[in-house]
Each structure stands twice: as structure tokens, then as C-alpha cells.
């Protein structure tokens, strides 16, 4: 059983190679994600046909900007949900960071300092969530429900509910209107966050432990991993992402409001679950979150173009969320069924 020392051993025997052989691409892909990719394509084609303004570069660029914040926070939320947790406070953190960053700019802080402060504020709230969840054992659902209320409350208290304008001469404001290759800074940053998320979830120990914790936290703990730290880091990550999103939203709108991003957490959670990440934990997909975020925003964007009442959007988002959760929880059996079918063939 000389099993651990391997580097100098001769070429592996055929049986070893067979054991380690990679499975086919189809076997590896999350079936729920494939279904959602199809749905997204159908919805995309529907709006392209229904409204000629949809398939223009200007609108697609606009769509990318709209997807940005949802995607940035969605990627981080994918880690949180995969670890078997939830973060309901991201909308409030977005509003808090947007409002306070605007206030700091008004107070004369330099843009570079404000940008750092925005990220730190987001991270700070995320770590508060993470500490209570991981180290005090309070369910994340309860903790983040409380911070959802407290964080937005603090922002409202601080700004007295007024929207705080950002001077167009500041770097932050310029960042909000800047474009590169026709796409906004928000869109490019979102893309970068997706890449980071992909690498982090699928190629690092952190991602591996997040998945493991969602499946069986005690098993991961017994393997010698600091489960509390990993859990806190996941929630810290979603706070950080919300801080980044808050800064970008304030920059784009040219103002920070404590009333912004109402219901944002629902959109984000819908996007993540839509993409195939399991609400039960243990299974996460960043590509799925990308697709989910696109789908939710394509629907919102398309409905606006078709001049459907804006008041319908939250109703549709909520309905889609319930439908998706239903499919997601049933999807376990569906996935199992598809696996059976493909294995038999």
C-alpha cells in the first residue's frame, strides 16, 4: 500500500488510466443549466422578433450594463448558495454603499479613496454576516434578514432618504459614463468577475471546500478544513461584490440613494438558482449564473421595450423566482432521470 509517493513511479497501468479518464463533456455539464440556456435563447429570439429596437448594438450594450450588477453579485451569491447559505442583504448593501459613497464624494473625499472605501464597506458588511453565521451559528437566513433591515436603515438615516448627487467632474462619475469597445465599465468588470468566479469555484481549494461544505459541512471539517473561515469568506465575498455593484450603480446613475436596489436580492437569487445552482447547497455553476443573470435582465429589458408597465417587473421577477425554485428542487429528480437515461444508452 505504498500509495502516497507517486512522482517516480512508472507509467500508470491501463486500469489506472481507465479509472482516471475524464468523463464526456455531456456527462459533466449541469443539465439544468443547459435547459436554461435554451430558455434564454428562446426568450432572446422572441424579443428580437417582437421589437426591432431589441437587437440593436445600443440596446445590447445597454443590456450588458443592466446585467452587470446582477452578475457581479450573482457570481458571489453562487458561492454563498453553493455553501448552503443565503445572503438576503445584498440589495441593502448596494444601497448603503451607493448612498454613503456619494456622501463621501460630496464631503470632498478623493475618488480613489471613495472607491476603496466602497469596497471595504461592502466587505465589512459581508464579514459581519459571515461572522454571525459561521462563528455564532445563527442561520444566514436570519442574520442577513436582519442586516437587510439594519444596513438600508442606516443608509436612510444617514441620508434622510434623499438621493445624493455625484458631481460629474469626479472620477467616479466619469467611470459611470466611460465606455470601452462600446461597452460600459460595469459590463467589463462584470465579465472579469465571472472569470474570477469561474477560476475560484472550479480550480481552487476554496471553491472545492465551498462545494463540500454545501454537501456535508461536518465531513469537510473532519477533513481538517477551517469550515467557519470558508463560510465567512463566502459571505464576505458577496458583501464585497455588493459593495462593488453599489459603487458602479451610483457612478452610472450619477447619484447614490438609500432607496436604490429594492428587491435586488431577489433578482440575484433568481438569477443564481435559475442557472442551476442548487438551493440545497453542494452544487454550483458560474456559467449558469451568467445565463440566469442574462435571462432575468433580457426579460426586464424586453418588457421595457415593449412598454409593459414597469410595475409589472417585480411581479414577473417574483413569479419567475418561485417557478425557478420549484423547478430547481424538482430538478434533482429530473437530473437523476436524465443521468439514468444517458447511462443506459
Amino acid at each position, binding site marked *: 500500500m505504498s*500509495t502516497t509517493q*507517486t512522482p517516480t513511479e512508472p507509467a500508470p497501468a491501463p486500469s489506472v488510466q481507465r*479509472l482516471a479518464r475524464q468523463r464526456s463533456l455531456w456527462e459533466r455539464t449541469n443539465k439544468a443549466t443547459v435547459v436554461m440556456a435554451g430558455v434564454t435563447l428562446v426568450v432572446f429570439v422572441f424579443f428580437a422578433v417582437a421589437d426591432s429596437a431589441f437587437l440593436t448594438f445600443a440596446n445590447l450594450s445597454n443590456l450588458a450594463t443592466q446585467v452587470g450588477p446582477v452578475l457581479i453579485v450573482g457570481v458571489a451569491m453562487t458561492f454563498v448558495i453553493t455553501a448552503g447559505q443565503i445572503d438576503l442583504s445584498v440589495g441593502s448593501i448596494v444601497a448603503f454603499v451607493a448612498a454613503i459613497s456619494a456622501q463621501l464624494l460630496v464631503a470632498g473625499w478623493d475618488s480613489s479613496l471613495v472607491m476603496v472605501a466602497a469596497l471595504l464597506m461592502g466587505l465589512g458588511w459581508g464579514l459581519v454576516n459571515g461572522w454571525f453565521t459561521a462563528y455564532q451559528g445563527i442561520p444566514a437566513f436570519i442574520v442577513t434578514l436582519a442586516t437587510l433591515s439594519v444596513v438600508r436603515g442606516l443608509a436612510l438615516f444617514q441620508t434622510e432618504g434623499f438621493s445624493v448627487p455625484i458631481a460629474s467632474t469626479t472620477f467616479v462619475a466619469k467611470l459611470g459614463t466611460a465606455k470601452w469597445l462600446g461597452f460600459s465599465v460595469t459590463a467589463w468588470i462584470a465579465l472579469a468577475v465571472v472569470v474570477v468566479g469561474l477560476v475560484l469555484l472550479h480550480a481552487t481549494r476554496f471553491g*472545492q471546500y465551498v462545494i*463540500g461544505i454545501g*454537501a456535508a459541512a461536518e*465531513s469537510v471539517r473532519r477533513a*481538517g478544513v477551517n469550515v467557519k473561515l470558508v463560510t465567512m469568506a463566502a459571505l464576505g465575498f458577496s458583501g464585497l461584490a455588493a459593495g462593488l455593484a453599489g459603487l458602479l450603480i451610483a457612478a452610472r446613475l450619477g447619484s447614490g440613494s438609500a432607496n436604490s436596489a429594492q428587491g435586488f436580492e431577489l433578482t440575484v437569487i433568481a438569477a443564481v438558482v435559475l442557472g442551476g445552482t442548487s438551493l440545497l447547497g453542494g452544487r454550483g455553476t458560474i456559467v449558469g449564473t451568467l445565463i440566469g443573470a442574462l435571462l432575468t435582465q433580457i426579460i426586464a429589458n424586453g418588457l421595457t421595450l415593449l412598454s409593459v408597465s414597469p410595475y409589472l417587473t417585480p411581479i414577473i421577477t417574483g413569479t419567475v423566482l418561485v417557478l425557478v425554485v420549484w423547478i430547481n428542487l424538482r430538478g434533482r429528480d429530473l437530473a437523476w432521470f436524465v443521468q439514468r437515461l444517458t447511462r443506459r444508452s
Partner: protein
Amino acid sequence: MAEDLPVDQRGDLLVELAGITKSYGPVKSLRGVDLTLRRGEVLGLVGDNGAGKSTLMKVLAGAVQHDDGEIRVHGKPVRFSTPADAQAEKIGIVYQDLALCDTLDVASNLFLGREPKRGPFIDRKAMHEQAARILADLHVKVTSTHQEIGTLSGGQRQTVAIARAVSFAPDVLILDEPTAALAVAEVESVLRLIGEVAAQGVGVILITHRLQDLFRVCDRITVMYEGQSVDDAAIADLDIEKLVGLITRTPQPTRTQPTRTEGSRA
């Protein structure tokens, strides 16, 4: 304890537990357990359901923190506050409930907590190759290292958990009912494996309710009863009936007839 022993034996001692206690609220799971394990020795740990065997082994593996008592490994007093501490002392364990992650694949479970890395990233190729080698060496019957643990049979999961513990090359190997879900051939190969690792100097603690297995591989038996270690006997001094008596604490009717062939086949 160690002070009483001749010097040559002291070097042999891998693990000494003395007066270990552990309570879960009002439940006193362990009320003072003594146990020793030597290099190359196979120790059987037996006792009724709920006697505290698994709790004691979790203490020794760092998964549970005891209240009182002393743990010595290689004669040195240690205190394990995390499972990683116990791993650092080369203590490997197969938990009764296996402690695997259903949604991770076989290789990821084998290497959980010690994934081979290339720079900051997990080296998946190396991980799967090493995993395949470990599984092939131990004749574990799975079809692919990419298969999710949750899709394996109970016995396959158990053999993966055993492969995981053995692949750490531990000095102390704890097996908490490792054969409960195994078919005949797999039980045989686990028993053979125990003999092999012990021959290499590993100390093995085997918990099982299959008493006949104890007589095949163990050198010594420690008996626990209601959270205490109550007996410690060389296997040569026992037979199945005596052992049953020790476990159930019913005084054996003293019918050690000389006609009966005394049990030890060790």
C-alpha cells in the same frame, strides 16, 4: 503511565489515553477511558451500542474535544483542537458515518483537505491520477475517479473512506466499523489490509461488532461499557464466549471445561 514501563517498551507506545471524559450536556458519553496502542499492534475496541467507542475515537481524531484526561502520542502530551491537529500527528480514521461529500467526486473526496496544487490551483489531473493509483492498489471497485460519491453504493463508499484514511500513510489507523456494509470478499480484503499495515508498524484500532473478525486480526482487545474502559485482554486469553461476557457484563458461568477446545485461533 509510561513511567512505569521499561524504557524499551516506552518507545513502542504510539497512543496513550488516560482518564478521558466527555459530556454532551447532561449525557456523560465518556466517564474515564484508558487505552494504549503500540506500534504494529491491532487493538480491537468493543462494547455495547452507545458505550462510547465512536466518541472516544472522535476525540483521538480531533473531531471532538474531550473534557478531562490526557492524550499522549509518541509519549508526548497533545491536545487536539481540530482534526487537522490529529492529522499532523499522523492519526488517520474511517468514521462510522464515513464523512464524505456526496456532490464531490471520488478523487476530490480522497484528497479533501490536501488537494495536490499547482501554484494556487488544484492540480486535477495529478489528483485523479493519484486517486486512480490508490484505488487500483487497494482494489477498490469503482468505475471512475470522476464519479460522484453520492452515486456509489454503500459498500463502495465505505471502501473509498478506507482508501482515504490509508492513503494518508498514518502511524495510527482508526477503523470505526469499517466492514459494516461490505460483502464477504471486501471484508476479507479489509482484514488483509489491516494485517499489512500493522506489519509495517502502523498501530490499528478496529471497532467492529463482528467478533469473529477480531479473533482473526487483533492482538489485544479493550472493552468499553457505559463510557468506561472496563477490560483489556490479550486475544490469546479470550474466546468468543468470554468476549461476549466482557461486552455484556454478565459474569460468565465458570464452565471452563477442559474438554472444550479453548477458542484462540490467533
